[in-house]
């Protein structure tokens, strides 16, 4: 075979092989995605449709027959006097805990990527709240905030915040109870956010900051002028995931206060649970939970916009 013949053969081979690959890719893509999609449709899609059906019906745990009643269930859910309190609590709980998480995790990210003695141990302690199942860590908090045997009482007595022998009723007063639930949520979300922030920090080349330092920029100047702006996309993603997670979560409230005192710490998720399961009113429970949906869709839209912007740049 001459050189010319061989190269001519390759020229005709090239495009044909590519076309063949493209053809098979058209089949391969859907074939690879189908199992995951089918699974999600069965385990998330189908139950979600059922949940919508519940919300527009008058179904209870007693009778499983569906009776469609239009928006009546939603109206009943919203007109419940507790509903507005619950909605306000959900926003307060989410906003304060996630604001704290984003500030603390950024600082902690800086601390844990710096080198110091005992860093390994500090990292271990910071990871602990993440590796404990929330049902158990919330029980630790329940004991730590006990109305009589809390160790904080001893500190408070020492500092004369309460009289000798006095107690702080953490979970029995509205504001303190909300503060406790927010503290627990901040404490348990902090490790994950910190790990995300550490990843973001380690992706920023040290040379950028070093060059600025050579040019005479001080620590705060470098922090606010260079590092934080570079870190902001990662911070936003960590924040949005934290918000989505906290907004729909009921574990902290459920174990620590049960929504009390009164309904001072009741959030939408726990309210839906109490109504739907303990109250046996599936329809109202589903409607209460569905009211979270518009907020979640809004958050999803923001996340997707950030993701697509990052892809373009």
């Amino acid at each position, binding site marked *: 075979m001459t050189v010319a013949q061989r190269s001519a053969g390759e020229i005709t081979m090239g495009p044909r092989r590519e076309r063949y690959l493209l053809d098979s890719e058209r089949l391969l893509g859907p074939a690879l995605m189908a199992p995951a999609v089918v699974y*999600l449709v069965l*385990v998330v*899609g189908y139950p979600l449709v059922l*949940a919508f059906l519940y919300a527009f019906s008058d179904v209870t745990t007693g009778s499983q027959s569906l009776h469609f009643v239009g928006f009546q269930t939603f109206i009943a859910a919203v007109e419940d006097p507790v509903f507005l309190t619950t909605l306000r609590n959900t926003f307060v709980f989410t906003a304060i805990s996630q604001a704290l998480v984003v500030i603390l995790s950024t600082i902690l990210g800086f601390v844990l990527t710096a080198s110091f003695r005992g860093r390994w141990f*500090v990292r271990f302690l910071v990871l602990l709240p993440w590796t404990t199942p929330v049902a158990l860590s919330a029980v630790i908090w329940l004991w730590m905030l006990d109305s009589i045997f809390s*160790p904080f009482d001893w500190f408070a007595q020492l500092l004369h915040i309460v009289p000798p022998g006095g107690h702080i009723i953490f979970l029995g007063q509205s504001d303190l109870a909300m503060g406790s639930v927010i503290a627990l949520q901040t404490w348990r979300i902090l490790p994950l956010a910190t790990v995300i922030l550490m990843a973001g920090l380690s992706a920023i080349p040290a040379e950028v900051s070093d060059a600025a330092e050579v040019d005479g920029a001080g620590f705060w100047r470098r922090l606010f002028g260079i590092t934080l702006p570079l870190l902001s996309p990662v911070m936003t993603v960590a924040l949005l995931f934290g918000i989505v997670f906290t907004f729909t979560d009921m574990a902290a409230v459920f174990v620590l206060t049960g929504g009390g005192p009164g309904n001072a710490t009741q959030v939408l998720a726990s309210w839906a649970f109490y109504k739907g399961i303990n109250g046996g009113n599936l329809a109202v*429970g589903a409607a209460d939970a569905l009211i979270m949906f518009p907020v979640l869709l809004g958050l999803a839209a923001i996340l997707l916009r950030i993701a697509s912007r990052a892809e373009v740049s």
Partner: protein
Amino acid sequence: MAAAQPRTIRGRVAIYLLAIGFAVFSGFPFLWAALTMVRQDSDLYVTTHNPFVLAKPPTLGHITDLLRNTPYLQFILNNIVIGLATVAITLGLSLPAAYALARLSGRWGEKVGIAIFLTYLVPPTLLFLPLSRLITVIGLQDSIWSLVVVYPGFSIPRDIEEQAQVDGYSRLGAVVRTVFPLALPGIFTVVVFTFTLTMQDFIYALAFVSSSSSMTVSVGVPTVLIRGDVFYWQSLMASAIIVAIPVALLYNVFLGRFIRGFTLGAVKG
């Protein structure tokens, strides 16, 4: 991971003070739990002395009680089985899908990707009622396999996103031998995430399982150790610590690798 080195004395002092502050914030509940765990009953409900001093000699009785007289070890075993099976299903379904999403998809793929991502935002509080019906229909109620069926629904969406980013970043073509090692930190992240998720859940575990031989730690421990108004505090504290410490040690060892998995996604973003 390049560790930044604070250069001034003031910087170093600040790092140490902040590190101590965060260590106390994260660790204090566990210190309190550890102190409670070894207290004798007569030393537990005392308000008169310094709570950080044991008035009676420490006892391991409540820990041995937990291990011998409750199904605690069975709960842990259930958690491990559920976690491993869920990780296997999640990887089996999400790796091919993520690959397809990153390398093969056109416009339709992007839409499917968004749809998959949106399922991540559907809260468990909304789904567990209809799901419990589904579980009954397929005859898995009161079995740990009911949880294995349900959990991937929550790990797959996030993991596909994660993997798609990693694979997209690598841009090395369809050669599994080269993509795989590059994607490995990402896969590792997925495994950690999925396992943590199965360990953390308690809504589904509460709704689907009612016999103690199938319970997970999250549901089983409170069921066994909280009887109405009676809390077995020392054993409760021990149950949390026994799970938390080994897992945290393990995570800490692999933290660097875990962060690399994230970074692959983050670099692109």
